[in-house]
Structure formats: C-alpha cells, structure tokens
C-alpha cells in the first residue's frame, strides 16, 4: 500500500514538473517600469542589485534591506489603472492574482501588506519622504530628482 501510493505520488509530480518546465516566461510588453528608492543606497545595493532581486521584493520573498531594516513597499493601486500592467510585468498573471497573492501572504502572517496609492505621483512622494521605502512606477512619471535612485524592474525594461 505504501509503495503503491508513494509511486503514484512520485509519478504525479514528475508529470507536473514536466508540464511546468517552460511555463515561466514573463510577458514582453513595452512598459518602462522602474523601482525608485532613497538616495542613501549603501544599504540598498544588494537587495535591488538585479531584476530578479527586485522581483523577489515585489512578490514578498525579500522584505528587508541589506542592513536589516524593513522595506516599505509602495505600489500604484488598482484604481490608478496601472496595477494590471505592473502585475503582468512581474509575472503575477493579473492584477486580481497579484492583489490576491499579497492578501494571502498577509493573511499567512509572515508579512505586512504593501501600501497602494491611487497615482504615480503619490507613490513617488511617499518614497521621497520615507528613507526605507521602495516604490514601483513607470519611468515617464519620474521628474529630475537627485534624492532618488532608479533600477529597472526587469531586464527588458
């Protein structure tokens, strides 16, 4: 009995993983998304050093800067009209799935929810005013500002 169920379990997983191997490509849209964060970047460089690292922050897998302080994550809300594009860019599938992902993480108790603002300007303003914040915005909304550093959201941005 143990052997039969163990074998069934194993076969099912081999099947699942075979199906899943090529399912992770991100959609290639032309949105120029970037993350912005405070100028004091000595503590930030590793956390946002690569697009993969940035994605982990946006999906809640990385929640602390390298100096141990909490990343204060800020994004445009669904009402802003930009969450759908952002969700597709980070590979979350849709804005519904992205919101649901964060709701589930919050409910799980390991994270506190990110902040959502209804405009890009509010996201940028929040980051300017909070040293540990990391915001996600479209590049065309950025104005010259020597307080903020910018990193691409994905390799193709």
């Amino acid at each position, binding site marked *: 009995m143990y052997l039969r169920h163990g074998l069934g379990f194993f076969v099912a997983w081999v099947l699942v993983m075979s199906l899943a191997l090529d399912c992770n490509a991100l959609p290639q849209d032309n949105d120029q998304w970037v993350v912005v964060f405070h100028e004091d970047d000595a503590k930030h460089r590793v956390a946002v050093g690569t697009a993969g690292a940035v994605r982990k922050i946006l999906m809640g897998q990385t929640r602390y800067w390298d100096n141990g302080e909490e990343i204060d994550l800020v994004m445009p809300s669904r009402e802003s009209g930009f969450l759908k594009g952002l969700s597709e860019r980070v590979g979350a599938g*849709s804005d519904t799935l992205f919101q649901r992902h964060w709701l589930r993480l919050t409910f799980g108790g390991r994270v506190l929810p990110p902040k959502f603002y209804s405009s890009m300007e509010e996201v940028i303003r929040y980051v300017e005013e909070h040293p540990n914040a990391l915001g996600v915005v479209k590049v065309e909304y950025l104005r010259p500002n020597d307080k903020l550093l910018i990193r691409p959201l994905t390799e193709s941005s």
Partner: protein
Amino acid sequence: MNQSLRIMMAWSLVIACGMSRAAETMSFDDWSLRVFSHFEAAAGDKELFSNDLSLGESALFLTGRLSSRWSFLSEVSFQPKKYRDDTVKVERARFKYQISSNHWFSFGKMHTPVNEWNDSYHHGRLFFPTIERPQSFSEFVPIHEVGLRFSGEGLGARNAFYDVVVGSGQSAHDDIFPNGARSLTVSGGLWIKDNLKWRVSVYRDKLIDYMASESHGVLVDMSSAAQSNDLEYTAYGSSLYYSGSKVDAKAEAYIFKPEGAKSSYSLFQRLGLPLTANLTPYVFFDFLRVDASEHHFAEGYSRKAGLGLEWLTGATSSLKLELINQDIDRKNKREDGAVVKLQFAVGI
C-alpha cells in the same frame, strides 16, 4: 469564566493597547483589518455532508505594527450556534518580534507550521485550493498551538526557511503551558525554484488522557484499550507547492506515528490548469489510511477524488464548484458516494 472568554478579554486588551500605541506613533497604514467569510451548498449522498446550505466561519483578521520590530496578528472566527458549540473562537493571537532581517520570534496562539497548507491558508477559505481542507486535518494534523516560535527565512540562495515551535501541546487547548512545554515542532524548507517551494516537518507531542480527547472524539476507537491514558506520538509532514502560469500543483504528505502502533498516513494532491487569470479547473486526490494497530483513530481508509472549478470573481472573492467521489471504509463508518459542493468565499 471559560477559557474562550478569557482569551477574548485578553485579545481585546491587546487590541486596545495596540491601537492606542498605533494612534500615538503610527499611521493606520500600518494596520490592516479584514473580514473573511464563506457560504456553502451541497447535494448528493446525504451521509457525506452535514448541511444542504450553510454559513461557514466568518473570521475577523487584524494585523499591524506596534513598533519597528514588534507586530501583532489576530484571527477571531464566528459561526452560528447551529453549526458549532463555540460561536466565537480565537484562532490566532500572536506577537512577533523581528530579531534581524531574516530571523524573528513570536508567541501566542498560532497555526502549527507542520505543513504548507496550515501555515499559509489558516481559516481563509478564500485562499483554500479546494473547498475543504485535506482529510488529515480532521485527524492527524495539530492545527493550533499555543507556544513560542522561532522562525527564519530568506536564508541563502534558495531562500531557505525554518520554524521551531515549543508548544503547550494539543491537550492544553488554549491554555498557556499548563503542563509545561509538551510539544515540539521543527519545520524547514527552501524554494527549489522561484515558484517551487518544499517544506518538511517533524512534530512531537504527548496527548494527555487521549481517550477523552475532544479534538479527535468522533473517531476515537473506544474498543481498542490502550496501555496508558497518555499517548506520545510523532508526526512527519512534507509539502511541495508549485505555482506556474499554466500549471499549479500542491501536494501534502503526512505520517502519524504513535508509540506502540504502526504509522498511519495521508496524501493530498491538487493539480490546477488555469484557463485564464480568473478561471482554473482542477483535479484533486486525497487519501487517508489508518493502520489496524492504531490506538486513537479508527482503522481503515478514506479516499476522496474530485473535479473542481475555481472562478476568482475578484481579488477578494471566489466561487468553487466541486464534484467529489468519496469512499470511506473505517471501523466506525462505511460509505461510498458522490457529492456536488459549491462554495462562495469573500474577504472584505
């Protein structure tokens, strides 16, 4: 004054203190309050479900920062007397202290991190991959624990994580260490890929006067006399969760090994094939087997297989429809039949 009431009063005090602290130093952006609820309908073989229509648990969920390192989380569920004896239950109430960026400890009433399902979905039907929890949750899985928990995550290139819980044990219910530290959970895992998570766990506990245990009362096999009124057992769990854009898959395996008896076990698997972002058909298989030498649970097996469809009607609501075939062959129950279930879950 009963235990639930005492916990409710303590919980209220915590909320009051936390909210006043938040009002002094923090914004309400640091707090999140939500209500989750669900409704269910069922039809088919009457022996396999309790109610044609039912209002499920409604849970009040609160989480927030108390300071830069302290946070609080609570989940209180409500259900009418018609469905359960305790209309109000504190499901979770715990304080968390962030030791460093990757490590923290927490204490209070929590869900035991013995598997991914219990540590992620808690009482939120909105997030459940199927309408019901795996069958093992009704028998082997120690869902709640009052205790002290040390945790870490984001360790190494694979984002390894761990949890160690020193608990009051299942016999203590909501009391805080009435018999000292009785249970120990050691759980850990890693992200094999960014969307593939693996967890293993070991849980050890001693049930006191287990023949009178409320939590497993329905399935206690009174005919098998035990050597002692206490029962020491070890449980082993493993979870494998994959989430892709075209396939998502979840598997839970659990082994229950009491002293003086052979192992019993359960396996749960769900495979979803998202058609669109909001529509996912899925299949699931759930098998539980209790060995004939088992003292505490009725021997035999229960097998469930089902087809389901999940429709995300929004970020905070979902509709699930399932056709389930169940075959039960236990010492205290034999049944074979089919059920259609519908569940609407919502979070506000």
